[in-house]
């Protein structure tokens, strides 16, 4: 076997390796994927039970409830984003690797979305149907939820990095992330309502897309700064 000098792994190698590791871990612990999903399903069931089965009522409020449930479900799994890594020492190793830390932070957020956000998006048509939301709003629902949950994973990674290792960090995390997530909720839910009513939805979709881009470019740096501060 040729024994050439090993090379420093490139940026893409670093990104992919962290994502793959987290996906591998999620595969070994299916609860990570299933818990947010079950939460999403249960909350979505609570709504018609609480409000009554009137189809018009459900369809009217459906987008809002769907979005709030997705938001809370994604929030559930944020606390453990860095907690396990912090406790077993792998976070320290990440901080000391030659890879740029913002890149690794981005990788963690992407992995979080793949495990917690994407399943929600895939299940959302079923939930929308159960709320008697018209079929024409399905595509917009899925699109806005995708952009929204990606933004939330990124925004949430900042909060998770700030609160890693703190007592009662979980409740604090929600308090930090939810006010920042309100624009996403507002535009997401309202856009889906507009789609259900058959109105133009481009404004909302563009806004969510822009917000998502902003989060993709800025959040990793904030998360990296927060990780260094939390590990001093």
């Amino acid at each position, binding site marked *: *076997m040729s*024994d050439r000098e*090993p*090379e*420093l*792994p490139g940026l893409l*190698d*670093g990104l*992919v*390796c*962290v994502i*793959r*590791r987290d996906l*591998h*871990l999620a595969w*070994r*612990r299916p609860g990570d994927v299933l818990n947010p999903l079950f939460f999403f399903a249960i909350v979505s069931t609570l709504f018609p039970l609480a409000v009554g089965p009137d189809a018009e009522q459900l369809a009217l409020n459906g987008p809002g409830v769907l979005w709030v449930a997705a938001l809370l479900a994604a929030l559930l799994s944020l606390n453990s984003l860095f907690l396990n890594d912090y*406790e*077993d*020492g*792998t976070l*320290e*190793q*990440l*901080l*000391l*690797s*030659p*890879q*740029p830390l913002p890149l690794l932070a981005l990788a963690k957020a992407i992995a979080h979305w793949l495990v917690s956000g994407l399943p929600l998006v895939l299940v959302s048509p079923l939930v929308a149907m159960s709320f008697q939301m018209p079929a024409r709003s399905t595509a917009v629902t899925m699109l806005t939820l995708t952009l929204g949950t990606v933004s939330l994973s990124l925004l949430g990674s900042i909060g998770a990095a700030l609160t890693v290792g703190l007592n009662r960090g979980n409740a604090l995390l929600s308090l930090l992330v939810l006010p920042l997530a309100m624009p996403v909720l507002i535009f997401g839910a309202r856009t889906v309502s507009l789609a259900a009513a058959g109105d133009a939805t481009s404004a909302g979709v563009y806004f969510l897309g822009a917000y998502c881009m902003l989060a993709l470019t800025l959040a990793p740096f904030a998360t990296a700064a927060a990780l*260094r501060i939390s*590990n*001093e």
Partner: protein
Amino acid sequence: MAELSGQALTLIRGDRCLFRGLEFALKSGELLTVEGPNGSGKTTLMRAIAGLIDPDEGMVRWNDTNVKRIRQAFHASLVWMAHRPGFKGDLTLIENLRFESGLRTMRMSMAEHHLVRLGVATLTDIPFRALSAGQQRRVALARLILTEAPLWLMDEPFANLDAAGQDLVFEVLREHLRNGGMCVMATHQEVELDAPAHRVRLQ
């Protein structure tokens, strides 16, 4: 010829001043031991050298450049071995090492050889958390060896190791220093090596 040095290092944690005006210089092939009772700030000093903590005053230099300015290059030149193993409990040790190789330069072609030498080659298929503390430490040693970085930072490397394990650490360390590497080690234990050694004592 690489050089690690610390100048006028001062660190204050809360109300306590852990150390003030600390100086050291380390060249290839040399060992620096950080000694002191529990709670005296050994780990904190190690973390400051690694760049995890910013000292309140003074700086750490790698090859005459402030490490804050060459952070990535500095990290490429060091490996860290701490109390916690730094591996994922749910993955096997081989999976763990393979993932590490995406983060830093590792000579994975020699992985099998070194794992046999460290006595953990038969444990490659069980989850990492099923290994004993001593075995986990040996895997951490494997990371040190495979990464081939000049600077080793070891925080209490002898903890949780039996006599055979401790001998392994000495053997591996001796080899590393002979090959031109350097090491900073925080330890309670007496370290006797045929290499030039410096000492830093903390109160």
